[in-house]
């Protein structure tokens, strides 16, 4: 196995660990990139050095390099203007909570 193929396999293995999108978008990052890095003709056009950089970038993103380096406080993550904003949003995205008619009316009327 060449180094080139080895890196490509590492990228594919990394991409396979990504969770599915919580809501369906017009394109899935995981699916599109998996197809790209599994396409042998396409991979042949990428130099080993560039492929390595693609892997390093993906690995850093998966390892939350920037989230951990630029740590945010509760000041932004639980904003005092609307402390439940992100909880409600994530709850809905994960399908845990669903906005009822009355909570929707409240959000429209009061903005939170």
């Amino acid at each position, binding site marked *: 196995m060449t180094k080139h193929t080895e890196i490509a396999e590492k990228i594919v293995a990394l991409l396979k660990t990504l969770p599915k999108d919580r809501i369906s978008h017009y394109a899935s990052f995981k699916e599109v990139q998996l197809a790209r890095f599994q396409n042998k003709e396409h991979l042949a056009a990428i130099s080993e050095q560039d492929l390595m950089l*693609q892997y390093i*970038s993906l690995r850093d993103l998966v390892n939350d390099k920037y989230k951990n380096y630029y740590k945010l406080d509760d000041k932004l993550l639980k904003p005092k203007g609307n402390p439940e904003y992100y909880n409600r949003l994530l709850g809905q995205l994960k399908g845990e909570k669903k906005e009822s008619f009355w909570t929707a009316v409240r959000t429209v009327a009061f903005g939170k």
Partner: protein
Amino acid sequence: MLSKRIVAIRPLSSSTAASFQHKNQILNKFNQPQKDLETPLELANQSTLPKTQPKLLKKEPRQPTSKNPFLSDHKIENDPNYKMSGLMQSIGQLVIKIFSIDMDKTRAGPVAGSLYYGECKKQALYYPNEPLSDTAKFYYETLNLPRSFSQWFQITNLHYWILSVRMRAMPFKYGKNYQQKLVDRFFRDMELRMAQELNISSNRIIEGYLKDYHTQMLGSIVSFDEGLMTDDITLAGALWRNVFNGNPDVDMRHVEALVGYVRSQLYVLNKMSDREFGFGKFKFVPPNEVVKPLTKAQEEELRAKVKAEFDSHNLPSQRSVLSLDE
């Protein structure tokens, strides 16, 4: 060595690597001191992948044929050296004092609707046959994004979202007002640019485009918010769909550079007090600079400097209830 192994198994886990390392005191001694980051520009320039753009459109995007004033042709916005006369200033201060005007509410217009909108707008603004600004070069040359009005919208929208994350953390009535002023100005300016710079003569078509852009904005904000709260790869996916137009051949180095850029801006905003932000002290850090996290001592020094600066603000127009501590 051990810390490297911990990082390597991270993709299989759904929790963050940092929390594991921090909880485990014994393992902390194996942690290597963190290397300084490269600037987003340096990072994006490292890769030499062939630059490709997805073929999304049947015809070339419409380009501006004329140039509007940056914000407006009004002297207050157009002239950076404009200063109100002494008499007008005194009358203004008196009116504010007599009617006890809430200056934090009033300030939202000039700060969010003008200053901050200008900050967002200029990042990716371009005109054909004019040299690109340094930030525009980063988007159109380094990241190789297509030069189009929609691309400009997406980049401006990303900067709008970065600011709106900070605005949410202000007291509700002020934060909402700042967000409203910023977004109103954004759409008003797009309407003017489409009519006057892109020469779209039909109001019906402009209105249709504005509705489309509004829908795109709502969708992208949900995605960016999800990325902010979850992890870097989710944020990267949101940026890939919205800023990189879902390009299948995107350079991951470019996506990483933009994720780092966004997180660094949010970090700066996180360290800024409501008062500083409300007074328009924030400027986006350019992509050719790197943000280094502050130490406790640096943070305290910065806070003391800010307090000293705002202590001298005694005019009625400089009144504010916004916090200086958070």
